[in-house]
């Protein structure tokens, strides 16, 4: 019996690695889709200096809030490719039958999604801080806040996109369902950045962002997997 469990465990490990490799490969093959979020982020952010004027005070005041709002939207924009294509082409059934728990499948798919959405936002964010003429402290505070916050956005979004799989207005409804749930991340993300910029101490909001990420990591896989099971009925 132990032997059987060990073999199953190794198969599971093997399958999990295979899935991660396949999803990363797919993300590279359709780089246009993968970069959609970060390109949207860059383009729409560059509209703000044009829209509200290039005055450094105004930009610095609204900067962290605008960057966070656009980060939410950028992640939202890329959510529908999380499970939809896998449901349509039957890959989701294949994954369900592999013996790999669906919860693990969800964690892997979310991790790959974050690598191709949230992580890119983190990497370009110092540039955006300069664009919005944020003070020097934002150069570390903004990427750190996004690093803690964007995985939560992916995980919470994953619940929404799994629940609305197969519904015709999927992506619009996902936005309506998920955006209200993003509000806590927005609030603490902005207060972390502002706290660091204004020298008010930002430890508490950073810790809360981290706590939200852990909670989402613990709960979202189960909720998402339940949604996926319903979608396959």
């Amino acid at each position, binding site marked *: 019996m132990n032997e059987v469990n060990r073999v199953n465990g190794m198969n599971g490990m093997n399958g999990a690695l295979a899935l991660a490799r396949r999803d990363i490969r797919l993300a590279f093959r359709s780089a246009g889709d993968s970069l959609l979020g970060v390109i949207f982020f860059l383009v729409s952010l560059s509209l703000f200096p044009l829209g509200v004027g290039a005055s450094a005070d105004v930009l610095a005041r609204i900067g962290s809030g605008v960057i966070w709002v656009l980060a939410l939207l950028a992640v939202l924009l890329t959510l529908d490719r999380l499970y939809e294509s896998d449901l*349509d082409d039957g890959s989701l059934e294949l994954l369900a039958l592999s013996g790999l728990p669906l919860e693990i499948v969800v964690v892997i798919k979310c991790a790959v999604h974050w690598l191709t959405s949230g992580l890119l936002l983190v990497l370009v964010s110092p540039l955006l801080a300069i664009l919005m003429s944020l003070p020097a402290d934002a150069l570390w505070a903004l990427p750190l806040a996004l690093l803690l916050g964007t995985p939560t956005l992916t995980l919470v979004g994953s619940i929404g996109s799994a629940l609305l799989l197969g519904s015709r207005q999927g992506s619009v409804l996902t936005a309506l369902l998920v955006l209200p749930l993003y509000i806590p991340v927005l609030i603490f993300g902005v207060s972390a950045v502002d706290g660091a910029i204004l020298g008010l101490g930002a430890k508490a909001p950073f810790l809360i962002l981290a706590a939200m990420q852990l909670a989402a990591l613990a709960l979202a896989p189960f909720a998402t997997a339940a949604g996926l099971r319903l979608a396959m009925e």
Partner: protein
Amino acid sequence: MLPLEASDLALGRNGRILFDNLAFELAPGDGLLLTGPNGSGKSSLLRLLAGFIRPHAGEIRLDGRPVDPSSSDFRSQLHFIGHANAIKGRLTVRENLEFMTRLAGGGTGHATDPFAIADLFERQGRFLSAGQRRRLALSRLLSAPRPLWLLDEPGVGLDRASIDRLQRAIRDHRAAGGIVIAASHGDVALEQHLVLELGR
């Protein structure tokens, strides 16, 4: 694989009863052919046995013990070929097959090529014809040995030679003690099989 039995199975979809009091008993080596008109519940029965749909009543037993078809223990003993082929258009045939094989826990070395797809290995999935896609999907039946095969219209889009290959694969699988349950409109023939007619 031990004897697979189902008793008193009942299933309704969209407020309509597809079947009730359905029962069968299959021993190793048996083949069960599901027949019946469109919409009679052939696919639903196969999806039920693969654990995607829960029956409204009845139970499935493996070696006399009730099993939950959606458990990973049961699922890791079966191959399910549904309507969708689970092929990624952006990946080559080799990459698709490698993924299916590793996911099913099979070895990566591919000695045999039962559905003659080796010529297509470097082609991307989106450039395959319907029949070629089906052959790639069927290849996963032999990528890892699993005793129970659930086949939903496996012959769709296949040419004569490929259907022969499929029938040979089914025959070999049953000769080795495997069980095959297939829904088909007659394009794929099983030998000495049992028939379950749905939708009467």
